[in-house]
Structure formats: structure tokens, C-alpha cells
């Protein structure tokens, strides 16, 4: 198996140009997301979804204009992949999480399972779509389209371990420069999703960017849920037995 690869998106050097959004669409043939003026700063695509696999958020604050390119996190413990009943979602040799469009039957279960609100069903097509980290490109030894296009290297692609080291160094540098609000997001293998394959350097709380502050993969609690369901099933059988007890004909 190949080394695990990922994205490190350093929002402190993002210039909000959206090259990532376009390069992604050109490579992956993703349809446009509609022409809607949203009046939310320079963001007119809203968020990640079936038709937007890279999305640049724009946040206007006093004196600051934050921009950050969001993407599927390719979680170590990926809920979408866990709950997919068809095996359309699978983990690749690069430890990324990919939907196989020839398999997906559009059950839609992955959609509410994702703690980041990334994957979505394209209604006119009936299947779920999200970032593949350009799986086909990776198989040819190429870097993903978004990372390649990114003019300022805000989106960095590479072996995940290496990216984590780079990110830690960058964070240290920013803190040394007095940018105290800089923080990494999704880099910790001990977090609720086992660490993200695509992690970020942010300049404010995650929720400011529309990201969940402490997401947990829902299937972490699944064994417990099955036990409770087992209890409920037993209770059901017991209740039925009770109903018939003493009424034997």
C-alpha cells in the first residue's frame, strides 16, 4: 500500500482566488452550482456539496478578511465510508476516502453521517459526490488539481506525516510572529475522527469558517448503539411474550 497522503490547507496564505474550486471542477467534470448572488462577502457557492468539492469561505471581521479553502477531510475514521451500505465509498491505497460512482445507488445515508457536512447527493443524478483527492491523478503519480493550481501554496499536498511536520513548523512560526490566533484543525490523530487526511491552519474558531469545533465520527458509538438496540429487541420480544403469557388457548 502507498503512503498515506493528504492536504494541508494553510489559510494564513490563502488569497481567496478560488483557483482550487475551478481546477477541481475542470478536472473532475463537476457541474456548476448555480448562479446565485448570496451577499455573503465574496462567497457565492455557499459550501461544500455535490457540485462544489473545494469551497473558499470568506469571513469579514474588523480589519481582517479571512479566507480558507475547505475540502473533504478524508477522515481516518470516516463516517460516510462506515455507513455506506453498498461499498461505493471505500478507502483507497492512499488512505483517502472515495465514492465509486458506478456503485453508488444514492441511498443518501452518507449525507447525514458526515460530521463536516461534506458529502451530498446530486439530485438530478441520484448519486452522492465529494472530493476524491483526485484519485485518478494520484494513481498516475500526479498531485490533485486544486493543490497543483493553488497560486500561493495555501493548499499543500503530500505524505500526511510530512504535512503534519510542516504544519507544526508553520504554526510555530506564526506564533513567534505574534499571530496567536493561528491554530491547526484536524491534524490530531487523537481527535474525534482519528485525525483528518485534509487538515487546516485557521486564524479563528473553526465554527467561524462553518466547521464543527469538535466533530466525532458517529460510528465511534456504534457498538454501544447496537447493544442498546439489542436491549430494545429483547424488550420487544419480552413484551410480546408477556402479552401472550396467560392467554394461551
Amino acid at each position, binding site marked *: 500500500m502507498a503512503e498515506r497522503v493528504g492536504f494541508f490547507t494553510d489559510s494564513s496564505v490563502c488569497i481567496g482566488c478560488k483557483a482550487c474550486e475551478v481546477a477541481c471542477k475542470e478536472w473532475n467534470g463537476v457541474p456548476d452550482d448555480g448562479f446565485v448572488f448570496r451577499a455573503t462577502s465574496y462567497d457565492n457557492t455557499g459550501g461544500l456539496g455535490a457540485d462544489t468539492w473545494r469551497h473558499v469561505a470568506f469571513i*469579514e471581521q474588523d480589519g481582517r478578511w479571512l479566507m480558507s479553502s475547505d475540502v473533504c477531510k478524508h477522515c481516518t475514521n470516516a463516517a460516510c465510508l462506515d455507513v455506506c451500505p453498498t461499498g461505493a465509498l471505500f478507502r483507497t491505497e492512499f488512505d483517502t476516502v472515495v465514492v465509486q460512482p458506478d456503485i453508488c445507488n444514492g441511498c443518501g445515508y452518507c449525507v447525514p453521517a458526515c460530521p463536516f457536512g461534506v458529502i451530498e447527493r446530486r439530485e438530478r443524478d441520484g448519486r452522492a459526490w465529494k472530493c476524491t483527492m483526485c484519485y485518478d491523478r494520484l494513481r498516475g503519480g500526479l498531485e490533485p488539481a486544486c493543490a497543483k493550481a493553488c497560486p500561493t501554496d495555501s493548499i499543500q499536498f503530500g505524505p500526511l506525516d510530512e504535512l503534519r511536520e510542516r504544519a507544526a513548523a508553520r504554526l510555530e512560526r506564526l506564533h513567534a510572529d505574534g499571530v496567536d490566533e493561528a491554530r491547526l484543525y484536524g491534524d490530531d490523530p487523537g481527535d474525534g475522527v482519528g485525525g483528518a487526511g485534509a487538515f487546516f491552519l485557521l486564524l479563528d474558531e473553526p465554527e467561524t469558517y*462553518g466547521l464543527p469545533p*469538535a466533530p466525532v465520527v458517529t460510528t465511534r458509538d456504534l457498538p454501544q448503539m447496537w447493544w442498546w438496540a439489542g436491549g430494545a429487541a429483547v424488550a420487544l420480544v419480552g413484551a410480546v411474550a408477556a402479552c401472550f403469557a396467560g392467554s394461551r388457548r
Partner: protein
Amino acid sequence: MRARRGGDSAATVPEAELRSYYGQPVLKPPIWHVPHMPVYLYLGGLSGASSVIAAAARLSGHDRLALAARVTAFAGAGLGSGFLVAELGRPERFLNMLRVFKVTSPMSVGSWTLAAHSGLTAAGVASAVTGLLPVAGDAAVMASALTGPVMATYTGVLLADTAVPAWHAARRELPFLFAGSALASAGAVGMLTTPRAEAAPARAAAALGAVMETTAAAVIERRLGLEGEPYQQGRAGLLMKTSRALILAGGLLATVAGRSRALTAASGLALTAGALCTRFGMLEAGKASALDPKYTVVPQRERAGGRRLTVVPDRDDGPHA
């Protein structure tokens, strides 16, 4: 235009503000359609509980009830499967559900269970209708009493095993809620389809199911706090309240309906309607919970940092398009 919700309000301390991205949801809401998904949840539960009743009735000699429950179990599974397939984005690919088996996916477990359950209940009904292979038919019914409880409860896990705060937070209670509701539904249909004289176990099941469901619902409401809010507000709240009233009324009526055709009918219909309301309400609550970022952000913040966030009332400073 500000990114912070209520950022202009001087009433709140910035540190304690709930921030979001233009008030947009963090999560994608469940995309399942109305009525497909709630009706499937109802039918699956009905089928599951009915198959247990069918087995128990068969074992205890309530043959009319057994036959009715056997048919109900089959019909529920069959119709339910139809709704389920119709719900798919690519219905022609429904067989892909049996491509892999994943215990990590309640839907995979459910699909395999539904497949087995449908087969077993179909065999049970076929045998009963044709009179052929009665032993095999009975064996199928007994086997379906094993798949039935899974059918009635896995749906609780199905919803809980998502990032939807209202569902995931209720992960302990949901199987009980669904089991109780399934039992009440099966009891109700049993009451309605079986001569009253033989329907006492069905009435008991209806009443017990109602108690179980109501209790589970009450626990959810009590235990969940903020994450339970969607069950009490808006359309979901209305549906859940209606459901509660119908279930309670139906359950009570079931205990006294033995002598009255009208009361039996009223009880059965109330319970059925209540069960349907529960399912519709669950879906609504899930959507509402996913669509408001506060249900995602606030509990996570509290879990992560212990920092409490003031929830600033909604103010429309988000997209105007």
C-alpha cells in the same frame, strides 16, 4: 455584513457568542424524502413486531391472530421494501445493497435483515395461503421472529448512527422508541384485523408498546437538553406532540377496547396515526437539528473545551438571496 451571528449585538460578550458561517448549517440535513422514509420506518417496524407476534400467536395457539400478524409482517416488509427502493437516487441499483455486508453500516445490516425478513415472511404467508409445506412455513415464521426484532430496532440505530445531533444524542433511547412504536403499531393492526375475542394479546401489545414508546420519548426529552430541542419545536414538535397524544390515547383505549368495536377501531387508528406521526416527526426533528448550526456547535464546544456558549437568538444576517 458580518460573519458572526449577532455580532453587532452589544448584549453578548464576544467570547461567549455562538459563531457560525453566515448562520449556515455545519451539517447536511438528511435528504430522505417524505413520505417514503417515515412510511418505511413505520412499515419496517410494523413488520418486525408483527412477525414476533405471529410467532408468539402461533406458539400460543392464537391462530387467527397468527395469520393476521403473518400477513401483516409480510405486507409490511414487502411494501416497506418498495418505499425503500423508491427512496434511492438510483433505484435500479437497489441490489447493490447486497454487494457488501458491513456491520458498521446500520443500513447494510438493515438491508440484509430486510432481505432475509422479507423472504421469511413471504414464505410464511405463501405457506399459509396455499397450505403447502406448513412445517416449513411455520419454521419461516419462527425464523422471522428473530429477524423481526432487528427490523423493529435497527432503524433506531440507523438514525442514531449519523452526525445529526438530535438523532445521535438520542442513540440509547431511539431503539426503544422504535421498538415500542413498532409494538404498538403491530398491536394496533392486530387489533384491527383479528376478531376481538382473540385479539387480547394484540391489545396488550398495543398498550405495552404505547407505554414503551411514550417512556422512551419522555426520556429523550428529559435527557437531551439543547440537542433535544428540535423534538419540541416547529413542525417536528407539533408532530411529536400529536404523536404523543395519539399514542397515549390509543394505548389507553387499547386497555379498555376489548368489548367495543368502535373503541378498538379508534385505538388501532390512533396508534397507527401516532406511530406515523412519530416517524414523520423524527425525520423533521433530524432535519431541523442539522440545519441550525447551534445544535452542532454548542454541544461540541462544551464537550471539547467546557466553554459555555450563549446562544444568541436567530437573526437574519445570513444570505439574502
